[in-house]
């Protein structure tokens, strides 16, 4: 006799839920997964009606499921959000070009407008050319630093209020462990926050903060979502690899461990006398930074001057002081443009035909 679902006691159970080890049916799985994400969104007051929300879409499993679930929940619970897909093209052939094809298909499947910003176009360097210049070591630093800025730039081009990313519970738990191992107390305090409180910058949040990676894969599989699954062709982060491997073993010992780690991380309280870095604006591009010149500008200068170790190794090579001729569009300019867009939109509120598609195109042009 087939085993019945532990939750509805009616349909046949087809999956063993990684988070709770219950045997449940397909419909109940969809229901609990979506409801938990909904609970996360509601409990942390992530959005308000009318928000323009960009979904950071890479074409991978997390962001594909995120796009699907966000659209589903927005319709089901009437959040009243304007959803957009926002992709970053790092310029890694054999990896990103293929995954972007997936995003383009998602755009059609979910009927969401899409904007792609590329490293090439923003910084004048693609990851392939960066790797050619710096080698395979440390190239992840460039990619990570540039991606963060690229998303913010893309968000301003679309005049978004909020970016959601597909970071899942495994990622959060891993980060907590990594910050413990490295003794990075200021990050340990911040890494459990569901949304970053950007001063004047676009709020960024992780609705999948409590969703297990395995369940996201399961969801994508059972819903037959179209996603791209290949590891990046360049090397992964070694130290994170340790934490990841440990977490996987821990999950095998006790499935609830991932959630338990996040619970612990949220309950930890950083002693008051621990110094936290203060935030400032970059003198060159206006991006938020804890130094006078932001990491992206330092790395770019290194690339342009032919000393790619600048900003990575601790050798005595100084950044040139003060503002410098840069190809980067200043953030103040982007913000002005966004403001303009908002005004135009408010004026043309009478015309309900949303100019999403053309806006995303013109946004792309603004930047080049």
């Amino acid at each position, binding site marked *: 006799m087939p085993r019945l*679902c*532990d*939750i*509805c*006691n*009616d349909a046949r159970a087809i999956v063993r839920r990684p*988070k*709770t080890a*219950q045997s449940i049916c397909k*419909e*109940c799985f969809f*229901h*609990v997964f979506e*409801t*938990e994400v909904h*609970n*996360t969104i509601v*409990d942390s007051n992530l959005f308000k009606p009318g928000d323009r929300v960009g979904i950071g879409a890479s074409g991978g499993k997390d962001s594909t499921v995120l796009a699907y679930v966000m659209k589903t929940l927005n319709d089901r619970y009437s959040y009243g959000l304007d959803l957009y897909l926002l992709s970053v093209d790092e310029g890694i052939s054999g990896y990103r070009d293929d995954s972007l094809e997936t995003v383009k298909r998602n755009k059609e499947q979910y009927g969401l407008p899409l904007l792609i910003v590329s490293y090439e176009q923003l910084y004048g360097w693609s990851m392939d050319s960066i790797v050619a210049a710096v080698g395979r070591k440390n190239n992840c630093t460039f990619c990570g630093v540039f991606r963060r800025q690229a998303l913010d730039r893309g968000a301003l081009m679309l005049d978004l209020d909020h970016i959601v990313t597909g970071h899942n519970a495994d990622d959060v738990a891993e980060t*907590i*462990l990594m910050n*413990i*191992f*490295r*003794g990075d*107390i200021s990050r*340990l305090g911040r890494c459990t926050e569901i949304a970053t409180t950007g001063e004047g910058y676009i709020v960024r949040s992780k609705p999948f903060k*409590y969703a297990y990676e395995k369940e996201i894969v399961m969801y994508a599989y059972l819903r037959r979502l179209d996603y791209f699954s290949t590891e990046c062709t360049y090397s992964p982060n070694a130290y994170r690899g*340790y934490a990841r491997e*440990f977490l996987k*073993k*821990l999950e*095998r*010992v*006790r499935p*609830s*461990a991932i*959630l*338990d*780690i996040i*619970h*612990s*991380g*949220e*309950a*930890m*309280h*950083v*002693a*008051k006398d*621990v110094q936290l870095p203060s935030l400032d604006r970059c003198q060159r591009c206006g991006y938020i930074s804890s130094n006078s010149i932001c990491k992206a500008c330092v790395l770019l200068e290194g690339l342009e001057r032919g000393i790619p170790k600048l900003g990575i190794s601790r050798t005595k090579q100084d950044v040139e002081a003060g503002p410098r001729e840069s190809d980067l569009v200043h953030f103040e300019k982007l913000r002005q443009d966004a403001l303009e867009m908002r005004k135009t939109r408010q004026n043309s509120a009478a015309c309900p035909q949303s100019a999403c598609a053309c806006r995303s195109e013109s946004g792309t042009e603004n930047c080049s």
Partner: protein
Amino acid sequence: MCDATDSPAMELPPKGRAEGARSKLCLKCKTAKPSITIRRSLYCKDCFVRASVSKFRSALSKSRKRMPASRAQVMVALSGGATSSAMLQLMADYQRMELKGFAAEPTYTGVVVGHVDESALFSGYSDSQICDIATAIGVECHVARLEDVFTLGGDQAALLELVHATIAPGTTRDQFCVQLARGDGSTPAREQLRALFAGLGSATDREDMLDIIKSFLLAQLARQAQCGLLLLGDSGTRIASKLVSLTSRGRGFSLPLEAGAEAPFLGSSSGVTAYRPMRDFIMKEIAFFNLWTAQPSVVVPTFTTGAPETASIDRLTEAFVVGLDRDFCSTVSTVCRTVQKLELRPDALTAAQCIICSMPAEASAQAWRNRLTVNVAPKDQTLEQVAVSSADVQPPQSTFDVTAHLCYSCQSLLHFAKPGVALPAFCLQNYREQIAGAKPSDSESDVGAHLQQSQERLRQQIEEFFI
């Protein structure tokens, strides 16, 4: 001079720290040939032992400055393992020095040993071996047995027995229901203890329960021996893996109490303060200290001795931390510093204590978990059905729900325990004390009265759903 083949067994310090290697002499006395490398520094035997002694003393005095104990008698918790044996010798040595008259008045009036005998669960060594370690050093040894936790109130005392800890289909919340069970005195305490451990769900849970019982017994021993201070032999390596393991078990809320350098032991009401003066030693240092000072110790077995690393969370984290420290040699000290930078959240100071582990229980822990592990079928969401299902799970008269008195982690512990498991007697004591906090008397009928009150509260909450 720089030839690496001089001492092939020794780890070579990396470039940039070559001073010690070039001279190949002890870092401290700069005359003797070094015998050991600790964190890339070379020491000779004598200097290493001396450095260990002063490291212990400075840790002790730092802790005393930050949190003085209420009474000056010290209890050294001795499992017989390497770290606690080394700690006993260091503490006894410190006390001898003070008594010799270097200090006008000794800081501590006396030193005794507290030992919890685990022979009910593990064989391989006897408590007389442990007492020998203590008597060889010349201190009195107080012993408690694990099974004592079942005879605290006499052979026939009532215990809390788990009825069910369940996510019943259709309920919106977990329930942890217990009932009072009176022992008939026929089951020996040792058997009751074994039944408790057999009824727990996994090796991780058994380790957790063992820690809880040992802590309770140590606190009791310390109180009985009039000790205000308890020294715990957690090495740096142990504290680092404990931090990771406690985090992985969802104990972040009480972490500073459980792994900090100095903390009230088992809640401020116990009157005992705990120090962890061995936190600056890594296991390697302790092993060499014991070797060179001829300090005997025993191998203390655990539930996962000899088991693969995925046998339990403790076993896994230990293997991982030791491995990581091998690759990145400052991991242990970095993680230990992280512990010191964490402090209790303000609400932890006023939170109710968990009746099992005596740690602060976060009030909203269960609600948090339930929002994130949804357990309701799509069709069960109408109000009517919620009312029906809530009525279904009203506990029968003789049982009561202790969910609100359990911390997040102990909820997990009970979740996978077998129904019918009898909890140690102190759980009932703790429960009574919490209820008595609201009403000043503690007889069994009050437990019943409390039960009715809570039933009434529950009923009021869902009243509007009744037809």
